[in-house]
């Protein structure tokens, strides 16, 4: 049983299509997850009980549940109850946003907490409103502090996109299994998939390390 790497170029279209879907899912999950994460982070720091408790409950709940379950729930369960059918990609995007925002939220909260009280008070004393203080002080300073942790989580999200496999979304991994069903060259195909992820994530963590060093 020799190695036949030609199976990759032969099926390049399918694989590329899958990868493209993975990218779409990734980018949209980030686009939704980061802002929501900022809100959740702020919510966890709120002194208003009616914000703090629901947000904390939500975060603690989601963090105890597998991402797989969240994806299932949104794709299978929700449509049955609401009568609306959501497509695979949309379900996956929503699930990711809902799930990953909690992780972002905790990281961002730590970042916000590291901003010294004095700096915030200085901002308020010059007449800035809460929203302005958040926008011009908390976010620039706090977010910058936790960029390494955020980068790590972003890399995790990129890997997590593979879970959309379970609802049949044709992302990169699902595409590769489709090809494998045809070609039965699992070592070459899955090896290729593994290498692609490995490469991208290594590049990501190198960038993250550089950013961390620059920040010091």
């Amino acid at each position, binding site marked *: 049983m020799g190695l036949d790497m030609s199976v990759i170029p032969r099926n390049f279209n399918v694989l590329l299509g899958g990868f493209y879907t993975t990218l779409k899912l990734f980018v949209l999950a980030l686009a939704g997850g980061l802002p929501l994460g900022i809100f959740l982070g702020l919510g966890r720091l709120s002194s208003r009980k009616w914000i703090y408790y629901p947000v904390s409950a939500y975060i603690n*709940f989601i963090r*105890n*549940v*597998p*991402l*797989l*379950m969240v994806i*299932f*729930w949104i794709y*299978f*369960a*929700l449509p*049955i*109850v609401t*009568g609306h059918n959501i497509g695979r990609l949309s379900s996956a995007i929503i699930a990711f946003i809902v799930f990953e925002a909690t992780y972002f939220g905790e990281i961002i909260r730590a970042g916000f907490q590291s901003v010294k009280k004095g700096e915030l008070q200085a901002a308020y004393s010059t007449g800035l409103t809460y929203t302005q203080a958040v926008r011009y002080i908390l976010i620039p300073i706090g977010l910058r502090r936790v960029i390494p942790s955020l980068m790590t989580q972003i*890399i995790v999200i990129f*890997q*997590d996109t*593979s*879970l959309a*496999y*379970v609802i049949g979304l044709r992302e990169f*991994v699902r595409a590769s*299994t489709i090809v*494998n069903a045809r070609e039965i060259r*699992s*070592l070459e195909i*899955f*090896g290729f*998939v*593994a290498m692609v*992820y*490995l490469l991208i*994530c*290594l590049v990501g*963590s190198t960038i993250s390390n550089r950013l961390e060093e620059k920040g010091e």
Partner: protein
Amino acid sequence: MGYQFDWGVIVREPYWHWLLNGFIKTLILGSISWGIALFLGLIIGTIRTLPLKLARAIGKTYVEFFRNIPLLVQLFFWYYVIPPMVGQWFNRMQNLPWIMAIFGLGVYTASRVAEHFRSGLNSVPKGQRHAGLSTGLTNFQLYRHVIIPYGFRLMIPPITTEFLTIFKNSALAMTIGVLELSGQSYKIGTWTFHSFESITAAVGGYLIIGFTVIVFMGWVEKKLKIPGLLGGE
């Protein structure tokens, strides 16, 4: 078209039994993999702190490799690629998915645990090394009696997180055919079309596991508390 909730689904036979079965499978899968992860992770984490360049390089390669490939892909490797390589007798084994899931999950989690161990061991103050070595302890004795016990306690919070995570990650085993908790909830859904209820039940199961882990690790932390260190007085 209104939806009729049927919560009885999850307490009726055979579905209740399926769920219970899945719950127990998740517990066992998580626990055994955790054992592998701790054992492997401790070794690799320690290797990464040794003064030998080659040892550190081996450790780093392991961690970077297993950490940067999605768990799903790793499981596929364990289930689809490796068994045929071992031999057809292996490929046809009864409990193949179960065994491969345990290995895959354990080896993957070990890479993350190794990082926490490395960080913990490196956080042990240098003076402790000096003190141990100055009484004539060998490097091995130093690690075994001073550095590892000390470093371990520093790592309990991140280790707790990993312990929680391994049970969540165990859900992926359903993709290679292991009927653990999430797999069962999916199956019930396909049989009864009441996946909302079955998935909710499964979520409840995971919450129970998560709660138990947190309580257990809290007990462990208390037992290992070092007075004067890390707020333990």
